[in-house]
Structures are given as structure tokens and as C-alpha cells.
């Protein structure tokens, strides 16, 4: 199917470029963005790895809200800081692998961590249990702007240093698996001396000091971040330096990329991804990766609005979403349909649940059944004096929604549902959603980790001040049980039930899983894409 798409797109650009000679073209794996195994290669040290980042950081800290960058932290602080445990690239939603913590044991209310010996910070000082305690204390300190991580860590009552290699974390109640995971995978090792002074203006936020295989050298705003290999690291990297170049504008980034300025090009826009399928320089010099991240786009219905009260209406609206047309025209066939709030390839998603297919006839029947009929012949259904109409909050900066929404609106209109678009600028969107001052809106959730705690998004307690913008209250008990399920198998079973429940209740119309579209130069090896991103320390350059 993809090859057919390619063959026909090539003619829409006829006359602009010479058609590439048949036989010399990209293969199937390249077109799909699948990584192919690299066998029999001998790695070498040396060289520089240059990669493109779209968003520029304002600080370098993995614990601070002010500099929280979500998935961006990977390429700014991902190689500088190390955490106690790390995600397994081959099984991202499985158990964590030991890193700075050799092992750990969780009893009823305490987590005992055995740390690695002989680990040093970039400033020369040694890493030990006191540093772990200092970092956790900095996160937990109420005055510090570390609320995001603090909330994720849960009810830690104290952190005890038993020996320089052993730390015991005590909780006031049994921690949920998400809270343990946040501690193990989310808290970096920061030197206690750096955190000793006043937190807000601590230099470590702008000049990070960690234990990772790369050290921070210099950050030039508007240009790049330079990282340098730590020579005497216990697991040293192969390249000498990493340059992270910040190029916000996709068009400029594309031009620079074509000139060969990036060894690793990230966040390729879908249209460009498709366009380079005709460019010989692309398939001859680069490998492409299309990775499904733990990110999905959704449309949310404000459940307190009368028009959305009936689940049949919400199902009908889902049936009126023209998924195939949108996939062709807007997503260019690059995004997978999802119904699951978890990572699309995880075990927590029930494979039996299929997306609601586009079916206007059934949608109309369902709306009739729910009592919404067009009695006055004006083209819009009503019931009890209320018209079936709603306003869709649309950020003015989103070109994508500007294309998706008219397509959706057309189908809704044909079925007697009136949807108007309400453009708002960036500063209004979130404040209105938080205040529940909307009818329908579209957003996407993403997480750098394969596991995500749905409690924050779907629990009714999170409607005020939390992320439950749609005010859903249909799975509270299930979400609580997931949090306390200590055994992974039990948790996965409950999560599948959550998936089915959300599908039945339709508080969200789940749309697609957002992929990451990257490309790597052929002479760069060792970078294997996974949900845990690339291990830059394993990358090496063939000169």
C-alpha cells in the first residue's frame, strides 16, 4: 500500500524534479522507517555527533518544573545525568534495568537501594548515598519548584543513608509501582554540594553536573549545546563530543539537513518525510526511523455539557470522525489509529478493542435512537429544545487542527450535528481547558516512559486543578486499584480493563499514536531506536 502511495505521489511533483531511475530507489524497510540490524561492524572512537533539537531549553535540570521539557530532556540532560535505574530498550514497558543502583528491594513501606561503587561526578567528587538523599530532599522540599516530580514520587517520609552505598527510602504508605518507578527512573544523581545552597539560583540548573558518559561544556542560546565525552567513565562513550543544535523552524532545519549538517535529524515533519522518498540524497545517505512513542492525540468532550451527556451521542460522534480521509490528507498515512491510553505496543492495551469505524449511517441511526431528531428541518437535530451543537476550541497556531476540523465538521453537518470552531491563541487554550470552559477540544498526551499513570488524567479527583479536563468519573475505583496493584501481571490485567472501560464510555475520542520521525546518517552506527530513545553513548561515527 505504501509503495502505491509512493508511486502516485511521485507524479504530483512531475516537472519539478527528474524522476529517479527505476531500480535505484529506497527499499521497503527504508520506506516504512524500520531499523535494519547492523551486523559485523567494528566500532571506533572519535568524531562528533551533531543532532537537531526543535525546542531550546531554558535550563538543564531533570527535577525542576521551570525547565521541564518532557521528551526533550533526552537530548539535553539524558547523557549528562544518570538515574538509579533505566528503561530496558528491548522491553520499555517491562522492569527497569539497574544503573546507578545495583539492586533494589521493596518491602511493605521501604525501598532499599544498593548503589554502585566508584562512580564519580563530572566535577571530580564521588557519588554516594548522601547525594541520593540530597537530590530527593531537593525534590521534596515544598518551597522548591519541583512539584511535578514531587507529586510523582509519592508519600516519602524519609530517606536514610545506611552506608555510603546503601540508601533506604521510607514511605508513609505503600507506594504504587508508578511512584517507585518515578524514584528509580526519574531522580538523577546530583552532587549534594551543588544542592547545598539556595535552590532557586543554584548554578547547577544552568551548568549541570552529573555522572553520565558526557559532560556539559557550553550552551549558546540560539545555537547549540556542546557535550564532551568523559574519558575515565566506567562505561565510556565512543564519540568525542555531541553537538545539539537548536533549530526551531522546520523549513530551515530541512534545508540544513539536506546540506548534511545533522548526523541525527529529529522531528521530521510528515510532509517532508514523504517528500524525501523521492530524493536520492535521502535514501542514499540516511537511515530512517519511525518510532511509535508513548504519545497519542485525542478529542475530549466536556462531559458536563448537556449535549455530551449521553454515551450514544459520543459514540455517534466517534462514528462520524472520518479517520481514513484524515489519515490520507493530514497524517499522510504515518500514524496508527489507537483507542488505548497506554503505549500502543504495550501489553496494557487490549488487542481485542478495535477503533470505532467511520459509519455515518449508523451514527445517524444512533442519534435518532438517542432522541435527537431534526424536527424543524433546519439541518440541526434537537431534543427538548436543546440543539445538538457545540463549539470546538482550536488553537490558532495548529495547522493540523485547521485541516482536521473542517473534515470532521463536514461529516457532522451531514448528520445534523452543528460544530463551530472557536480559534483561541496559545495562552487561552490551556487556561480554558483547565477551567472546563469549553465544549470540545483536542490535545495530545505524551510521556518519555512506556508506563504512564492514568490516574492523573481520568480520576474524578483530578477534575479540579488536575489533568482531567473532561471531568470524567467513570473509572475511579479501577484507577485506584491499578495504583495499588503491586504485581505487574495483575496491574496489566486491570489496565486492559481500563482500556475497555474507556472505550465503552468514550470520554475521549482517541485518535492516533504520534510517531517520532527521525533519520540518521549512514556513517553513524550504534543508534538503535526504541521508546527509550537512542543510547547516544553507544553511537559511533565511521569517518
Amino acid at each position, binding site marked *: 500500500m505504501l509503495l502505491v*502511495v509512493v508511486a502516485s505521489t511521485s507524479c504530483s511533483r512531475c516537472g519539478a524534479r527528474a524522476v529517479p531511475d527505476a531500480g535505484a530507489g529506497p527499499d521497503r524497510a527504508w520506506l516504512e522507517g524500520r531499523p535494519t540490524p547492523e551486523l559485523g561492524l567494528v566500532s571506533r572512537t572519535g568524531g562528533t555527533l551533531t543532532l537537531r533539537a526543535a525546542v531550546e531549553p531554558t535550563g538543564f535540570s531533570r527535577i525542576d518544573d521551570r525547565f521541564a521539557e518532557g521528551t526533550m530532556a533526552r537530548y539535553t540532560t539524558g547523557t549528562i545525568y544518570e538515574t538509579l535505574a533505566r528503561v530496558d530498550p528491548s522491553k520499555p514497558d517491562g522492569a527497569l534495568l539497574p544503573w546507578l543502583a545495583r539492586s533494589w528491594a521493596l518491602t511493605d513501606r521501604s525501598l532499599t537501594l544498593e548503589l554502585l561503587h566508584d562512580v564519580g561526578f563530572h566535577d571530580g567528587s564521588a557519588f554516594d548515598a548522601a547525594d541520593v538523599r540530597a537530590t530527593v530532599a531537593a525534590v521534596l522540599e515544598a518551597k522548591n519548584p519541583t512539584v511535578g516530580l514531587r507529586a510523582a514520587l509519592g508519600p516519602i517520609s524519609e530517606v536514610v543513608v545506611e552506608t555510603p552505598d546503601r540508601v533506604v527510602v521510607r514511605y508513609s504508605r505503600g507506594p504504587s509501582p508508578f511512584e517507585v518507578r518515578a524514584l528509580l527512573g526519574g531522580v538523577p544523581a546530583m552532587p549534594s554540594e551543588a544542592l547545598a545552597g539556595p535552590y532557586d539560583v543554584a548554578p547547577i540548573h544552568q551548568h549541570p553536573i552529573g555522572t553520565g558518559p558526557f559532560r556539559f561544556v557550553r550552551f549558546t542560546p540560539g545555537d547549540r549545546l556542546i557535550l564532551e565525552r568523559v574519558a575515565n567513565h566506567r562505561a565510556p562513550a565512543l564519540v568525542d563530543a555531541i553537538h545539539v543544535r537548536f533549530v526551531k523552524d522546520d523549513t530551515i532545519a530541512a534545508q540544513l539537513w539536506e546540506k548534511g549538517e545533522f548526523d541525527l535529524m529529529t522531528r521530521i515533519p510528515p510532509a517532508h518525510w514523504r517528500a524525501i522518498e523521492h530524493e536520492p540524497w535521502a535514501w542514499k545517505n540516511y537511515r530512517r526511523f519511525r518510532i511509535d512513542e508513548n504519545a497519542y492525540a485525542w478529542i475530549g468532550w466536556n462531559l458536563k455539557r448537556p449535549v455530551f451527556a449521553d454515551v450514544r451521542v459520543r459514540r455517534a460522534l466517534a462514528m462520524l470522525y472520518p479517520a481514513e480521509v484524515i489519515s*490520507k490528507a493530514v497524517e499522510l498515512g504515518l500514524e496508527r489509529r489507537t483507542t488505548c491510553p497506554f503505549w500502543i505496543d504495550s501489553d496494557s492495551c487490549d488487542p481485542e478493542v478495535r477503533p470505532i469505524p467511520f459509519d455515518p449511517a449508523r451514527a445517524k441511526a444512533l442519534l435518532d435512537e438517542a432522541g435527537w431528531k431534526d424536527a424543524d428541518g433546519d439541518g440541526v437535530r434537537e431534543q427538548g429544545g436543546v440543539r445538538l451543537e457545540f463549539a470546538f476550541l482550536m488553537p490558532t497556531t495548529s495547522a493540523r487542527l485547521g485541516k482536521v476540523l473542517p*473534515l470532521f465538521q463536514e461529516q457532522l453537518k451531514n448528520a*445534523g450535528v452543528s460544530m463551530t470552531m*472557536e480559534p483561541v491563541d496559545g495562552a487561552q487554550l490551556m487556561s480554558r481547558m483547565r477551567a472546563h470552559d469549553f465544549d470540545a477540544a483536542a490535545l495530545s498526551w505524551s510521556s518519555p516512559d512506556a508506563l504512564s499513570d492514568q490516574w492523573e488524567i481520568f480520576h474524578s479527583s483530578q477534575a479540579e486543578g488536575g489533568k482531567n479536563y473532561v471531568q470524567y468519573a467513570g473509572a475511579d475505583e479501577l484507577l485506584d486499584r491499578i495504583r495499588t496493584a503491586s504485581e505487574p501481571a495483575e496491574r496489566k490485567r486491570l489496565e486492559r480493563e481500563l482500556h475497555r472501560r474507556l472505550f465503552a464510555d468514550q470520554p475521549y475520542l482517541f485518535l492516533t499514536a504520534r510517531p517520532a520521525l527521525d533519520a540518521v546518517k549512514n556513517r553513524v552506527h550504534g543508534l538503535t531506536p526504541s521508546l527509550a530513545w537512542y543510547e547516544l553513548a553507544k553511537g559511533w561515527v565511521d569517518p
Partner: protein
Amino acid sequence: MKLKLALAVLAGWLVLALLAEPIASELPIAVRLDGTTHLLPFWTRPAALHGQTQQSLANRAEWMIGTLVPYGPLQTLATTGVDRSDAPPYAPDGRHWLGTDEIGRDVFARLVHGSRMTLLIALGVVLLSSLLGTFLGALAGWQGGLVDAVISRALELASTFPTVFFLIVLVAALRGPSLLAVIFVLGTTRWPETARLMRAEVLRLRDRDFVVAARAMGASRWWIMRRHLVPNAIGPVLVSSTFAVGSAVLMESALSFLGLGVVPPAASWGELLQQAHRSLVTPGAWWLAVFPGLAIASVVLASQVVGAALEGIRRGASKG
């Protein structure tokens, strides 16, 4: 551009704006379906034809008189019956004479319907700015003194200060774009021209005999302004308004280009240019840039020519 051509262009767009539906609509001019004849269904909107398009009626109807362009401005590739495997925007071809936009909507249809939006906004802006300018200018001219000084100063500032910045701030303050917001915002930035002319006229006529006499008889200043001053000043105001049409069209398309103009999915020439800019490299949709730009340029130039001609007439008349 000659005057006749300019007037023809303006009249042409006016006609297109009024007759947008018979020219391009998803519903036909007339159709007989299931024993009932429907005339001009795009205006009457009969319930029997809800959700139907000319494409879907083609097989079912007994007979049908279609519109010139058988697509509506809101009809996307989902319902136009175009089944291509590549993604829009599609270049001009036999089905879409001026091509389509990013979601398959016919450009010709959107141009024609966009003219309605554009001219409506231009008219609203000109009306608002004329009213505001006439009022403030007359007030300044009549009162003199501090009032005049303040208004004159404001006038100067308003005409020199970069307006786009203020436009964006105003649109943001009005809770986002909407038709009324756009008209209001653009109208409040065009008043200095009219105000200046009005003020000059009032100053010129204020001390004439008939005005003095009217005041002596106890007439209120508003009555005098309405009866004597404003009718005399209509000439220059009309000239300025004609120029204002072109400028309003330019500003509206600039706002739409930024996404702050009309509310989607309404058709607007500026919005088409925004799409053109987005698809510059892939797929290089020149049809999205050329045609809307020609439309805008034609209206702006025509209004300038007509305005210049009116200016010439007025000058000739005042000399005599």
C-alpha cells in the same frame, strides 16, 4: 488601469459575492428528486436535500441543473468524489479548474465565496471608520481648543503607529477572532483619514455666514453638523472611503494570513495565502498563491483607481 476597467472589476466582484452560490455550491441550481422539484436549493435549504451534494445527486436525481463549479467552498475531498491516492492540495485539472487547497476544497469556489467575506468586511470597516472619523473629525473642528488638540494628536499618532501590532493585541483582547471582532478592530485603525478630512471641512465652513446665522438662531451644533457640515464634507469622505476599501481588504487578508482573521472554515483570500505559504516546498502549490493574490490585487487596484478618479472629480468640482 482605466476607470471603466476598475469599475468593472469592482462591480464584477460585487456580483460574484452576491451570486456566489449559483456559481459554486455543493447543491445544484435546480433538481428533481423523488417527484419534487427544488429550485435554488442552496438558498432555500430544503430538508430533503440535507447532506446531499451534486455528486451524490448525479445518479439519484431525475434531472439536475448544476452550478458552474459543482463544489461548495466547504466541501472537502471526502465528498467531492475525487478519489486519488495522493494527498491534497491538488494542482489545477479538469475537475478543479483552479486546483484545491490542503483538504481538497475547490479553490475557485473558495475564491468566489471568499469575495463575499472580504467585501462584507471591507464594507463594515469602511462604514465604521467613516462614522468614527466623521464624528471625531467634526468634533475636533467644531470645538477647537483642547478637544481639537487632543484629537489631532491622537490622529497623528494613530496614523503613524504601526497598526498591525495593535491589531493583533486587539484581536487577542476580544477573545479571539470573529467576524465582528475583525470589523471592529480594522475599523478603529482606519478612522484618522476620514477624521482629518472632516476636521478640515468643518474648520473651513465653521465661520461661514449661514452657519453663524444658524447658531444665532439657537440651533444645536449637532443639528448644524448634520444639516450643513456633513453633507458638504461627503465628497472628500467618499474619496477616502474608496481608498479605504482597498486598504481594508489588504489588512483583512494579512490578518487571515496570520490566522487571526475570519473563523475557519469560512473562505477568505488571506487564508488561502496562508495555506500557500505552508505548502511552499511540498508540493509547491502555486495555485494557492497566484489566484487569491490576483483577486486581492485586483480589488485594491480597482479601488485605488476609482478613488483617484473621484478625487479628480471633486477637485474639478471645487474649482468651479
